[in-house]
């Protein structure tokens, strides 16, 4: 009976761990994309301010 509860706990833990890891991955991706977008916008502004060849 104890192992029955143990496996139930493993099942619940696994379900939540997959969701939590995925949510953390999404949050990290959000930060990376924001940084990249800022960097590319700065690059475009720099290119626009340079005289055309």
């Amino acid at each position: 009976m104890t192992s029955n509860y143990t496996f139930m706990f493993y099942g619940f833990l696994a379900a939540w761990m997959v969701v939590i890891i995925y949510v953390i991955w999404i949050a990290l991706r959000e930060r990376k994309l924001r940084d990249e977008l800022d960097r590319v916008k700065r690059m475009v502004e720099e290119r626009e301010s340079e005289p055309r060849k």
Partner: protein
Amino acid sequence: MRLKIILILSVLSGALLAWNLHSMFMDVPDELNQGAVFRIIYFHVPAAMTSFTGFYLGMFAGIGYLVKKDLRFDSIAAAINEVSLAFATVTLITGSIWGRMIWGIWWAWDPRITSYFVCWLIYTGYLMLRRAIDEPTTRARLSAVLSIFGAVDILIVWKSIEWWRTQHPGPVLEIRGGGGMAPGMEAPLWWNALALVMLATVLVLIRSRQQSMQREIDSLRRYAHAF
């Protein structure tokens, strides 16, 4: 508007999941033959339902791209399929843990489990394909075609427990003519399905916004290199 929807759905989903946890442990008794471990079904089946729904919606978004040639459909399809894959992973892992306790084995090459694993491989391949192709229209077209193949497999997964009676349990829900669960035991499963669908919607909204950001980055980069 999108942020408001995300916040509202997050709160509702979190509250419903917490209330469901209370119901699962306080209101629902242990199953006669399986004991406490049967409660894994409250995550296993709703996660499977969420992934099935998502993969079909992803296919429709992919078809939307093939018809309209609008990359927004492709972004939505990619977001939906990725989130659905996460829920498919939950289904496979929780099913494996339940099988270890009830059958004494972690895995069985049963038609239901194998076809679902094939589905998992197809959508993992879908994400790998997207990473491998840089050209947006080619990526969108091939992804849409692959998601149509994936949806065919979903139909096989869905019907497999009726077509082949092997290791995996047959239909237990009332809606599929199972009748294997008492109504009081079945209700938390549907509430959890609703909570997981809301959670999946939140994740899809966030991921599709990220896909739009990625498109903006790509177009700005192309513009910068045109100088």
